[in-house]
């Protein structure tokens, strides 16, 4: 009996139907897999499963949204919207408040008071935008809560420091208990006004001559008699005084 061959007598080479069959199986397999595996709502709204939105909507709501806060805390809201934190939502600092809205008497939102919380945005980092208020937490009033001086609902914009201690607090506190407590910073440092605006670009000066300290500490200086004296000519003449003595906390002779 003759073998069944649908292409017998035609000019289609034997390889063609075999390859067509292989590719047909691959393509049909892909289509079947698509039919069973691609979710029904895929691609309705974009390159994702549209029903995923319903899944997300079904999640428990944790945030109430600031409109809900406004209903009871209108004044605070007005204050905040007029200030520099107008772009920071209530729940950014106070945490998810949906439960508080549903039961305001029993459940209270958190009030972050620790410095680390504010430092998430305000710690100095060169990658933050220029002009964004930033502090060095080691130097900027350590151990003090931010809200002691700043109102988080209406924070003041950064001001040009009036005193050196605003930035150089550590030095100022050290100097305050030293023999140099009575001296102004500007007695020894010339600090141009621009230093207060762009502290890293315009630096204050330091004394570069021994004769500057000699103004008080030289044998022949015109200063009160209890101030320690040295022979400027013989006392380590190759060094400037502050290379050995720390002027913000000079040692007792």
């Amino acid at each position, binding site marked *: 009996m003759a*073998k069944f061959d649908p292409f017998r007598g035609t000019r289609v*080479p034997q*390889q063609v139907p075999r390859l067509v069959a292989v*590719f047909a199986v691959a393509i049909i397999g892909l289509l079947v897999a698509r039919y069973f595996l691609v979710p029904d709502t895929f691609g309705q709204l974009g390159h994702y499963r549209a029903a995923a939105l319903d899944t997300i909507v079904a999640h428990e709501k944790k945030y109430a949204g600031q409109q809900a806060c406004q209903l009871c805390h209108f004044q605070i809201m007005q204050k905040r919207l007029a200030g520099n934190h107008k772009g920071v939502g209530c729940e950014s600092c106070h945490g998810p408040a949906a439960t508080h809205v549903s039961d305001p008497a029993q459940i209270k939102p958190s009030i972050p008071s620790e410095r680390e919380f504010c430092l998430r945005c305000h710690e100095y980092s060169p990658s933050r935008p220029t002009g964004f208020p930033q502090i060095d937490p080691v130097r900027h009033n350590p151990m003090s809560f931010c809200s002691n001086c700043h109102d988080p609902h209406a924070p003041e914009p950064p001001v040009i420091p009036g005193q050196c201690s605003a930035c150089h607090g550590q030095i100022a506190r050290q100097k305050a208990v030293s023999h140099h407590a009575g001296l102004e910073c500007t007695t020894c440092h010339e600090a141009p006004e621009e230093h207060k605006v762009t502290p890293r670009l315009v630096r204050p000066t330091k004394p570069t001559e021994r004769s500057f300290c000699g103004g008080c500490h030289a044998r022949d200086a015109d200063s009160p008699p209890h101030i320690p004296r040295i022979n400027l000519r013989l006392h380590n003449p190759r060094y400037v005084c502050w290379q050995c003595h720390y002027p913000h906390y000079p040692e007792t002779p």
Partner: protein
Amino acid sequence: MQGYIYPNEFELHWSILVVVYPYVTGLVAGAFILASLERVFNVKEVQPTYRLALLTALAFLLVAPLPLLAHLGHPLRSYEIFLTPNRQSAMAMFGFVYAWYLMVVLLLEIWFDYRKDLVLWARQEKGLTRWIHYALTLGATDLSPRALSFDERMGRWITIIGIPSAFLLHGYVGFIFGSVKANPWWSSVLMPVVFLFSAIVSGIALVLIIYMVSAMLRWKPVDMKCVDKLAAFLFYAMVVDFSLEMLDFIHRLYESEESIEILSQMIESRLFISLIVLQVALGTLLPMITLGLTAPALSKRSAVKLPDELKRLIYLGSAILVQIGIFSIRWNVVIGGQLFSKSLRGLTVYKLELFGVEGLLAAAALLILPFVILWVLVKILPPWPEAEAKLPRAEDDSGAVTGAVPLR
């Protein structure tokens, strides 16, 4: 770390596995283009490497997506790029480029080329190999002259389609990097072209290595005409590749964008060994000069007359250096592009792990795996000239048997 970098740049996101991926893909494209030299451009000298090059391309192509799957994680989800194709994403389209190249180009070409041998092997053999070879024929056992000439014609057409496909496969990899606008080290329209020519270089060098080593292991003589020609083509491809890279380099220098300072710092410090020493000096200039002098590339005779044994050694050494150089290119592109900060003010470092999915051992395993696959492929589909089955005389001459020849 040096200078200023953004916090999210400290750790590199694309590891050595992403270096392995373009390297392996490049070898595939390069090996295929070498195979097409014989088929389309009729370079008879390289005929002994034709089948070997195709099998090499296939072995490496099968491994090509593995580094990506290992790097991305969730390999069980990978099929989804086929089910829900995203035409807006070049990366998502890779699945289709890959499938096209594997299914339509490489497998088909190998099948048409081997079909006659598969049928004859199936007839002569016994046991498991007989059934493996018969299954691979897909039942198409017709060995009539008409069927064989169809195989030949189809093979040729597929190679012609295959050349732009190979360009697409590897050009695509360069495209992925070249189109990252935010990265001045990658963003260059020359990137796909540079990738492509470096792929051709690496593919030719790889087949040269595999051909010579396999001849040595089989105790067979190396066809000197073939390796001379391969070395000459390797030299030509290297000249074009090096010129393109220099063009890219000069273009960057002349353009002198704001990134030039940090990039030159990076080249002088972080990439000095991998770029200046390995890629340019040892991986390109040294083998290029050596091949230029020893291979018959510039004239019919080589500039320096050397005994064949020494020439073979030099070719092998040059090809290995070329592999090191091309791997360095991939390293310098992938890792280099992540070493400098987008602030253009600092450099980070890449700490290569030893163990772990993204480690050195995993990368080494992925680079060894294609050779294991190639060994299996060579066992099933021997590419050697002596393994080629001869047609029985009756069918060979007269063409009297025109229908399907059943498995005896």
